[in-house]
């Protein structure tokens, strides 16, 4: 039924899910639950450490997280490298402003960049409050059958859907 949606541009979802699950199981065997919001903390911890080591030492949030010389930071750095490699070898168009955003709000880069800055700020603030993000809490948690991950997952999907409807309205639906 959905076959026509699987243009060769993108990998079909089912084999891709097998690939991702293989990687996740490998990570559980060799490290522990994978996480990506922690990588942000590791990077900011490493950066702040160089200018204000005393502040980092006395901060309870940084105390629980490793700095840049860690699996967690290597992992997010690897994700950027993987994204780069996949982007360079594939045909998916790279844009600075998503099409649907451009249709709704125009092609102002300042507006889009301000929006993603604000969005990034909110998702990382929220991730640190919950202790994880889509990967570290929802995917890792649900894989371990954790109620925290399932609870977080239901909320993020439901609220993101409502938010997207409020932000975009009927943009993109007319064609």
């Amino acid at each position, binding site marked *: 039924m959905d076959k026509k949606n699987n243009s060769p541009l993108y990998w079909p979802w089912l084999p891709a899910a097998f690939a991702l699950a293989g990687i996740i199981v490998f990570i559980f065997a060799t490290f522990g639950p994978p996480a990506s919001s922690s990588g942000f903390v590791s990077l900011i911890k490493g950066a702040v450490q160089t200018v204000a080591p005393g502040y980092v030492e006395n901060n309870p949030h940084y105390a629980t997280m490793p700095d840049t010389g860690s699996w967690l930071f290597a992992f997010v750095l690897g994700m950027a490298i993987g994204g780069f490699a996949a982007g360079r070898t594939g045909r998916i168009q790279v844009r600075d402003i998503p099409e649907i955003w451009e249709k709704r709000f125009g092609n102002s880069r300042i507006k889009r*960049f301000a929006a993603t800055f604000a969005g990034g700020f909110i998702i990382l603030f929220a991730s640190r409050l919950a202790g994880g993000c889509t990967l570290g809490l929802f995917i890792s948690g649900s894989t371990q059958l954790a109620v925290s991950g399932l609870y977080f997952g239901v909320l993020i999907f439901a609220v993101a859907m409502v938010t997207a409807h409020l932000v975009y309205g009927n943009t993109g639906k007319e064609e």
Partner: protein
Amino acid sequence: MGSEIWLGLLSGIAFGFVIQRVGASNADKMARAHLMMESDIPKFMLMAVILSAVGLLGLEAAGVANTRVLPTSLVATGVAGILFGIGWGFCGYCPGTTWAAVGEGRLDAVFALIGGLAGAAFFAHLHEFFIPLLYDPFNVGQITLADWTGSRPAAVVLLVFIFGLCIGAIHFLWKGKNGGQTP
């Protein structure tokens, strides 16, 4: 320490490669998924969880699993879930896809990354204010589905069933008229 970093880097490269290829690092595709116009990303995510949960059960049987269940704080996890959903629906990136999208060269993701670093630093600064206020008093512990079903295999079966139903519902309810494809 050395091997840990190489393992992390290798795992990250593989992870970033797959999520780029399936389109999760494309904020346009993600927005269309949230708008019920493209179903590949949510089906991909849920299926990955199903398969990982089954795989993890195997690792546990083999005695090589490293697990760490995060506690559920009814208020902190809930408030965070709502805020996260607002940010995700608004900008189309989540923390992991941001890194892959930056690697791809999407400039808006660079700003999401910088915003994310600022958000993480902001939370870290106020950790001592928020955690005792929102997290600790409502922390019900490291509960899992297995606490209700009695055994981990039974809980995995339950998870597979629920997530499978969700995949089916998404498959039939999401429109996918234009498939969220980048022309």
